[in-house]
């Protein structure tokens, strides 16, 4: 429970990563950073593919990476902003995350990238952005990053 002293996860505390071939396959895959048992289950309830395992409402979610289709249903509803969609395509990495700040992001926007600790770790380009009004004002955005950074980039800010 060291992560509760810091507020972020270190490498050895991360949940098991999706297999490399799954990340590089045709569809992106979700990665949930929600290790603590809290009474919360919207992700489990939103999944139509039975890819999220949860025995009771206090159970941390566990993803079956083979069943996950990368449909983003869980990403849309997660109140903890703890779900990320990761993908590697043509040697480039992509991370999709929830974004609730002004100015809203649009495709082509350049953004600064931050890791779990809030360190500035580079720049990225938005390749897809769901309009905020389409998801109760939580925008979903995909940012193109170095493929080695898909498990590092956890926040973006514009300007």
């Amino acid at each position, binding site marked *: 429970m060291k992560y509760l002293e810091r507020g972020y996860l270190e490498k050895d505390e991360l949940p098991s990563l999706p297999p490399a071939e799954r990340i590089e396959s045709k569809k992106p895959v979700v990665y949930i950073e929600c290790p603590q048992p809290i009474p919360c289950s*919207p992700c489990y309830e939103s999944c139509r593919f039975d890819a999220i395992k949860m025995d009771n409402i206090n159970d941390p979610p566990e993803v079956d990476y083979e069943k996950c289709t990368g449909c983003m249903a869980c990403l849309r509803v997660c109140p903890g902003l703890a779900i990320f969609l990761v993908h590697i395509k043509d040697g480039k990495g992509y991370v999709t995350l929830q974004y609730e700040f002004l100015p809203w992001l649009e495709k082509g926007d350049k953004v600064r990238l*931050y890791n779990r600790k*809030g360190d500035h770790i580079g720049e990225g380009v938005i390749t897809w952005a769901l309009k905020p009004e389409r998801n109760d004002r939580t925008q979903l955005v995909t940012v193109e990053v170095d493929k080695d950074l898909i498990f590092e980039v956890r926040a973006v800010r514009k300007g």
Partner: protein
Amino acid sequence: MRLESHPIVDFKRGKEVTIYFNGQPVKAYEGETIAAALYAAGVRVFSRSFRFHRPRGFFCAIGKCSQCMMEVDGVPNIRTCKVYVRDGMQIRTQNAKPDAENDYFAIIDKLIDRFFPHGSHYKKFNSPRLLREFMTKQMRKMAGFGNVPRNVPDVNTEYEVMEADVAVIGGGPGGLSAAIHAAKYGAKVVLLDENNYLGGQLIKQTHRFFGSGRHKAGTRGIRIAEILEEELMQYDNVDIRKETKVFGIYGMDVAGVQNNSKLLRVKARKIVIATGAYERTLIFENNDLPGVYGAGGVQTLMNVFGIKPGNKGLIVGSGNVGLILTYQLLQAGVDVAAIVEAMPRIGGYFVHAAKVRRLGVPIYTRHTIVKAFGEKKVEGAVIAQLDERWNVVEGSEREIECDFICVAVGLSPAHELLYHVGAEMKFVPELGGMVPLRTRFNETSVKGVYVAGDVAGIEEATAAIMEGRIAGIHSAITLGYGGDEAKKELDEAVKDLEEFRAGPFGERIVCGLEKCVLESEVML
């Protein structure tokens, strides 16, 4: 200071009006409270304390703390955070000469300990008699709160007697849910709330809620308030009285004042008390300086009225309230210097902490605030590390640059009415203080009086909604409404809540609840 845009909330401001603060015109918008409008105009000192003449300002924003009392249209001691602006309103600061910002008597704060050490008031100015009489007069003049209005107030008063199966006091998540579920099975419900809106503190919760989808998880608090209100509006057997302050319960009669002019007497067969909670504060040097705010107060200012509390804040307490508030400040474009937490670990949900951590807000566990500094408002703070025995580690003090401080160290149940009905109370630290003993259907030791929400023990809105549901259904059933269907839902509601509290976060609550179970459980 007013926010023009916000990612989550659209601020609908009313007509522009002018109010007068110590004679100076101030721009305000209809729908704003006096305190919010003055804050937006940059006013930080709202009054002076009556003894030391220390500056007093905004703190809780929900009418509980008395820090914002001013003279409004000639009437002293008005809680300006609860009164809405009207064009031409005259507002004056009190306990100060000439006004609170530039108070001559502020010098007392610096001198009083030197000339009047504690206990000296027994000995000073006692003789000769003439001096005593003169000084008594002068001190009487200076003491007390505000000036008595000179005119006889011109008010019309009415009196109304109503009957209800279930009277619900408080229109927050717990009260709304109790009203909905009692009304659903046919009980005649009267809902009383002191505000001119329903939803209680939900109206400033811009974040999405946790829990299960069935209990509105993933939905923003502001929206949950709307959903509950819409649901309640479906029923014709509900009478909603807003702007009604309940001041007492006599037997099973609830007494309140509506719109400051009508006395209400609700003859109820069952009563649900859902009055919520107060914000706690913390002891540190200068904790009374304007700029030290309750976390909820800042949420009200920012998320309800769209007013920035400052440029850079320091958050004390890393429970969910502190963490969520930090995120909301960032969303409103306000910087957060740090979060300090006295415990060795973050108190709230990890995911909430991760949200702000990745945006660069440091969280210092095992740290506390030592003091705030500033003349009339917060200009900075000093934090320090704590050792295992909760003492400040020498040399670890460091200055934090900030212009406001949010105290998010928990809440205490607002339990006055429970004492009034004579409910058996018990001190349960896990539940936030003095709480009533209750059955598993949330009935207190006084038959027919129920509790729901934070007044029964500090938890959060989802649990309040679930408790309200239980209290509402049980009160309806015991009045003979609902039949088997209601009994089935009651079982389900009790089970849902048990499951909700089954995790490690609920453990503390469950442990607290075990200490306040009423032995004489009334089974159906």
